């Protein structure tokens, strides 16, 4: 019997459009191809409204002119938490669809940051990917570095500050930054896809870059830029026993690997479809020894953050000394980095079905955990025993 799966995508995020691509390539395409699921696409618009309509199972829906108007004309979908998650499709003949499992394809804020995971945990429905805690930590580049560093793994020197600190203690912040070595990277702490990020070489560039970063986020990270640099990214999948894909080296076209490199490049190298198919070298030609070290460190980072399902760990490697630094963790790699998994011998369908299996495995484990217990506290509270009761 087919299971009903909801694929949630879009959302109030700078990566809204990337999320639509991830949802379809490879997630919905593979789920449908497997024949094992009834797939309900659940689209969250930029203003936060939820819509569910099977017409949206086809990516071409989102390529047609005026698709946003068509979505706006649909009835908004309601959610019901009733022994699991249910979609409520309103109308003359309203329909309630019971969801067996949720596949989140939401990048960035309100999705990848743990917000959606919290909602799904409350609903009591299994969902694919990292849980609320790993997602929330990985979304904060500073928290990620703090945890990784506390586990004794290497990171580059950095400074972080909030918008308030920048506005009220600017000189103190700059003094801290001066202790770092130029060139520096300035990054908004909570944004992915390199949005608002800049590489700076002097004070003027630094202040401008910080202003830009603060336009997108209220917490900013400034860190040493490694030069000469080899960037490596490593997709990882699994719960207790993670498996790694191939080390991948982005082929930078701009000075750093920005949003357009990641999602708008149209070279032939990757050859595949989807977001991340055309800009990188897979497997990276960095030698077996270095590759193995990266993979080993990647698994340690994955476990340290408590990642489950799938994630991608990014590294910075000094090209001369071969020193490896953990850079950041992405708990929903664009298009699941399916192009990389394919090179590692995992087809899109195997990838998606394995993620479903991992989600169900975790859900079964969570169900076995007791979150409530019997207590007499209500019966006793306020009772008129001598001297009252002590809570």
């Amino acid at each position, binding site marked *: 019997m087919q299971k009903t799966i909801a694929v949630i995508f879009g959302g109030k995020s700078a990566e809204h459009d990337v999320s639509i691509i991830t949802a379809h390539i*490879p997630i919905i395409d593979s789920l449908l191809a497997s024949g094992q699921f009834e797939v309900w696409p659940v689209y969250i618009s930029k203003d936060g409204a939820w819509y569910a309509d099977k017409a949206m199972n086809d990516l071409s829906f989102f390529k047609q002119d005026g698709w946003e108007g068509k979505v706006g004309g649909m009835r908004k979908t309601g959610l019901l938490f009733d022994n699991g998650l249910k979609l409520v499709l309103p109308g003359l003949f309203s329909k309630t669809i019971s969801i067996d499992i949720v596949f989140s394809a939401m990048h960035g804020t309100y999705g990848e940051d743990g917000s959606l995971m919290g909602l799904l945990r409350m609903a009591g429905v299994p969902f694919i990917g990292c849980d609320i805690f790993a997602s929330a930590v990985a979304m904060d580049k500073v928290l990620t570095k703090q945890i990784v560093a506390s586990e004794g793994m290497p990171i580059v020197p950095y400074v972080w500050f909030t918008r308030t600190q920048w506005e009220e203690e600017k000189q103190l912040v700059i003094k801290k930054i001066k202790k770092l070595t130029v060139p520096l990277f300035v990054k908004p702490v909570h944004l992915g896809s390199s949005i608002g990020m800049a590489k700076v070489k002097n004070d003027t560039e630094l202040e401008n870059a910080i202003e830009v970063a603060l336009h997108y986020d209220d917490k900013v990270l400034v860190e040493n830029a490694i030069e000469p640099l080899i960037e490596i990214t490593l997709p990882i999948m699994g719960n207790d026993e993670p498996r790694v894909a191939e080390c991948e080296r982005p082929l930078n076209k701009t000075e750093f690997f920005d949003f357009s490199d990641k999602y708008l490049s149209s070279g032939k190298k990757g050859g595949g479809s989807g977001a991340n198919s055309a800009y990188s070298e897979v497997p990276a030609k960095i030698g077996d020894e270095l590759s193995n070290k990266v993979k080993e460190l990647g698994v340690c980072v994955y476990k340290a953050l408590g990642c489950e399902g799938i994630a991608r760990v990014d590294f910075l490697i000094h090209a001369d000394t071969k020193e490896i630094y953990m850079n950041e963790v992405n708990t929903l790699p664009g298009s699941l980095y399916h192009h990389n998994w394919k*090179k590692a011998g995992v087809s*899109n369908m195997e990838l998606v079905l394995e993620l479903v299996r991992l989600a169900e495995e975790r859900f079964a484990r969570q169900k076995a955990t007791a979150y409530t217990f019997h207590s007499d506290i209500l019966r006793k509270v306020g009772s008129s025993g001598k001297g009252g009761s002590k809570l």
Partner: protein
Amino acid sequence: MIHWLSRRHPQYIRSLVYMLQASEYNIVDFLKWHERVKDFRHIEKRKHLMFTPKTIILFTLGWIALLATLGCAAFAFYHVASPWNYLLSALLVFEAPLIVMVSLLFFVVCIRFVQYPVEQFLIARTRKRLSAHRGIKIAIAGSFGKTSMREILKTVLSEGRKVAAPGESYNTPLGIARFVKELQSDEDVLIFELGEYYPGDVRKLTQMIRPEWGIVTGVNEAHLEKFGMLEKTADTIFELAESVGASRLYVNGESELARARSKNGNILYTRAGAGEWQVENPTTDLLGITFTLLKDDVSMNVRSGVCGLHIPGPLSVAADIASRLGLTNHEISDGIAKTKPFAHRLEPKQWPDDITFIDDSYNGNSDGARAAIEFLASLQGRRFYVTPGLVEAGTRVMEVHESIGRKLAEAHIEKVVLIRNSVTPHIESGLRAASFKGEILWYDDMQFCLSALRSLTTPGDIVLIQNDWPDQYA
């Protein structure tokens, strides 16, 4: 219910015209198809209705018939006495689809009376033109492999002679008449493919062409539903032998039924050679095939772009005919080098992500399937064999498909992807009987299967599509 409703959908008339066109206006085939259809709104899947003068007339006639029927219903409602008016008008409205269909079939039958004398005139004119044509005529008959043989011959002989051959499926009297009309009269060699659907078809064509040379590519179950018995198929194909001298008739020795019908003096050809030409050391890959061609003291290392270990047979036929027509060894070798994979017949293509796709979708017979499995087995990588099975295998449907299953198991193909229909369970039976170790995947239709394969494959995989059922069989 959907069947009933879809017959009352406006799309129904277009679907009827398309079905007639796709059935080549064969009323029996059309009616069998009509009986099988569940939803007339979605008939045109692989191909679409081509608007020719005939289909435009049919389409218009269909609408006229429908409007006239509805007009009659309205007339009956107002002018026939109650309660018969209700009954009659309801009957006309509900049975309008039947009236439309009968009108179209009536038109198809009527047009035959007009067409027949026209056809006879065209055939007579073609016979006259061909008898006056100075070119050597080579005719190819067989249940399978005719197009491949035609293209190989054309390519090889073109190195030293001016050659003409009809394109695509010009293998009926009218098709050939159309081709002959375009000839320049200075061609040295004319190559004809002879289509066989009913007993007497090949004789009719050979009487028109009067070929000097003939090639029988083989006999198998293709069109068995029409012939009923394999013997009748063989009889029809070997009608070619009646008009070609024994020493100028090449017969595929790898086809058991064809070999059994061959006579003394016929030239048997196999992958080991043809006539005086011997084949040695064949090796095949996705780029084609290489082998050594030997004759007396001549030895040529040749390469062809056509894939498969069975291909040296037709290539050596071409070499032998070329040699007998006076082409030099150098020209023969160059001609073989120019042969390329034929569209949709073991045609390798590259999909994104380093996935190889072998299009054998026009190859829908048991010998072709055997050659395809043999070729796939010779390739390195994870191999997918995708098929909806073969059509028109008649009473041998189970035997033919179980044999395909067994061969796939023996070839250790990793993934067998089957399209659900009446014949593929027999392939599964064959696989199980031969203790198939790979994975069997099922899909409802080929289009969905092809898109699913993008999700199933990884770099280095090889996907072979064996046959694709036309709409009338799906």
